[in-house]
């Protein structure tokens, strides 16, 4: 069996599993898996660029995904004019002052001669700048958050179509990645890992606490959609006529149509990205990246700027994660900062990349679908397993209740096992790099 036949077979197996879900559970569940699978595949592509192409160990995926989600809010929600009037400009002024402080401090550090003057000067700039910033920032935030806190209490967005937010979400993530990369790249791989872990937690903390920006834990709900609403379809004469002539129930058909529309949009993004990623990988640039990954010293000796290339790929990969994050928030129709968990958004994506095959874009895509399918299906299977195991126990026994109740936590256990088994017996993943 040739390699490509094996790969096609693997994809066929995964989609067979999803089809089976459609027949055995419901098409809604199957399409749900496909939609999140497409998004997961995009995330996995982003991580695969960083890890597979360049060997960068980024475990802050969650933060970049969340920034993408913030992008969706900022672009698509209607602006809250009252809040803008209350403190919008003051707030922007405060942020500019804060940024200027940091730029001035960096400038002072770079330009002043070494010595006590430089250290004290930089500290003085930072301290004074911080108090100026807080002095401007706090009243502005208070004014904004006082505007109708139950339904808005934030600045809102730009009121543009939500599709525009996908590239914007990517750009936001890219900006954050630039800041992280500037400070942490060039350090050892473990340090980059810890730094990205930290920045992800900070981004989530900002989203949770800066109510003026994202409404914090009050969540932004009801984001506009790029596809029609189920309720509109159900009231649309043509739609009902079509569906009834084809013999479908309009209510179920409407939700399936909406999911199919999302799937179409996501598929276009995934295919374009996959094409770009493949083209990049087989270009001289891709060969250079792999050369750097395999032997940094040799690549540097050949005149390649390793730090710069690392920064470049780190930004690109993070931007792809941000894009996926914006897509996910679009699909959910809401931004819920409290729901971002590192195990789900960082480490699960890593399992996808490792299981699929690091360094191979098709592997990452396969891993995205497969692991997401398992993530969704392990829970019902776990419950069934627990019911079977505990069938012999008396009803109402504490052990039985505990075991059945714990079935939900089978997910993490299973993901860890899958990761360890793949790393042990097939360390290059299901579809290895050539």
């Amino acid at each position, binding site marked *: 069996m040739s390699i490509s036949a094996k790969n096609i077979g693997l994809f066929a197996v995964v989609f067979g599993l999803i089809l089976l879900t459609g027949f055995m559970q419901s098409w809604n569940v199957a399409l749900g898996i496909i939609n999140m699978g497409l998004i997961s595949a995009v995330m996995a592509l982003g991580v695969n660029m960083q890890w597979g192409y360049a*060997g960068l*160990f980024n*475990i802050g995926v969650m933060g970049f995904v969340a920034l993408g989600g913030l992008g969706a809010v900022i672009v698509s929600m209607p602006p809250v004019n009252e809040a803008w009037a209350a403190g919008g400009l003051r707030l922007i002024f405060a942020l500019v002052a804060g940024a200027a402080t940091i730029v001035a401090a960096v400038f002072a550090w770079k330009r002043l001669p070494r010595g006590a003057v430089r250290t004290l000067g930089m500290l003085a700039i930072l301290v004074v700048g*911080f108090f100026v910033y807080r002095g401007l920032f706090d009243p502005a935030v208070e004014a904004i958050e006082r505007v109708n806190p139950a339904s808005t209490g934030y600045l809102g967005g730009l009121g543009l179509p939500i599709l525009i937010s996908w590239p914007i979400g990517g750009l936001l993530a890219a900006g954050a990645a630039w800041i992280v990369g500037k*400070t*942490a790249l060039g*350090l*050892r*791989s*473990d*340090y980059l*890992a*810890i*730094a990205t*872990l*930290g*920045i992800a*937690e*900070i981004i989530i*903390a900002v989203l*949770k*606490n800066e109510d003026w920006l994202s409404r914090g834990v009050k969540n932004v709900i009801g984001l506009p959609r790029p596809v029609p609403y189920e309720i509109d379809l159900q009231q649309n004469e043509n739609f009902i006529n079509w569906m009834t002539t084809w013999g479908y129930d309009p209510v179920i058909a409407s939700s399936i149509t909406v999911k199919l529309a999302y799937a179409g949009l996501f598929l276009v993004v995934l295919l374009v990205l996959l094409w770009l990623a493949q083209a990049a990988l087989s270009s001289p640039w891709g060969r250079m990246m792999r050369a750097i990954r395999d032997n940094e010293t040799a690549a540097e000796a050949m005149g390649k700027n390793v730090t710069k290339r690392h920064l470049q790929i780190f930004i690109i990969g993070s931007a792809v994660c941000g894009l996926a994050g914006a897509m996910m928030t679009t699909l959910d129709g809401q931004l819920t900062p409290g729901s971002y968990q*590192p*195990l789900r958004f960082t*480490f699960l994506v*890593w*399992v996808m990349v*490792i299981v699929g095959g690091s360094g191979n874009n098709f592997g990452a895509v396969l891993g995205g679908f497969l692991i997401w399918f398992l993530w969704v299906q392990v829970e019902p299977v776990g419950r069934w397993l627990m019911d079977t195991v505990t069938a012999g126990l008396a009803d109402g026994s504490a052990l039985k209740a505990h075991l059945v*109740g*714990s079935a939900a*936590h*089978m*997910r*993490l*256990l*299973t*993901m*860890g*096992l899958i*990761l*360890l088994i793949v*790393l*042990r017996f097939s*360390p290059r993943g299901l579809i290895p790099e050539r």
Partner: protein
Amino acid sequence: MDLVNALVALLNFVVIPATAYGAQLALGALGVTLIYGILRFSNFAHGDTMAFGAMATILVTWVLQGAGISFGPLPTALLALPVGIVAAAALLLATDKVVYRFYRRQRVTPVILVIVSMGVMFIYNGLVRFIIGPDDQSFGDGARFIINARQFRDMTGLSEPLAFKTSQGITIVTAVIVVAILFWFLNHTRTGKSMRAFSDNEDLALLSGINPDRVVKITWIIVAALATVAGVLYGLDKSFHPFTYFQLLLPVFAAAIVGGLGSPLGAIVGGFVIAYSEVTVTYAFKKVANYVLPENLEIDSLAQLLSTDYKFAVSFAILVIVLLFRPTGLFRGKAV
């Protein structure tokens, strides 16, 4: 101007909590740094090891409490601690045998071991949630305070109260004892010396006849003890919640890196640096300032640099600053 009350307020809200938290972080960071020094990788499963050890201790504590056994004014959990350590050690040794040893034999690059430890982290995390559930568990008993606010007021007649929780006292005392034993072990016993030799130069250590398997085994046992003690103390002081242990990973690693990965002394200093900065930066100094400042200058604002939700940002900022200006940490750790 009231310096005494200001000092008491500072002691109550900053010094005591930060010292207890610092001791917990230092114990956690010691485990991370030992694994880094001897097994040469960053163990991402460490937070969940702490959770597992604490969980085992809690289960035994419940059994003891059920049997009516108590430790007088001290929490029963201290009696259960040795069992928790044994359970954690068994888990770590089993993991090493099943998982890590294979990669050690293959001499893979450290980053692969880090990814492997990610898988182990998932499994431990799942295990803990599976056995004890994802919710808060309280298991502290015994006397709640060494000195409570009322006693302190009666004793000193100051207007500012001061409370010293038993859990904080126990944390500090236990940490001192554990660290003393660890340093004595590393510096004065044959096994400890062989561990340091192995950490300094593996090839040379092997040439001088040190048994690597034994060193690794003992390291895991010590790490299990440190992680369990840290986990239980943290749980007693705050509360046991599986997810918070995962989140402790960041400050613990920050402490280990700030001190210099692989340096035990550095881990302790790093733990206190991180803890004190977190608490000072997120504490609202209004009260202290108003005691110190003359009456006409009293401030209304909280005088809080950052809200408590940003404590991660503090450990992160310290980490970045140290890495930028002193990449090997304060105590010259190793750079693999």
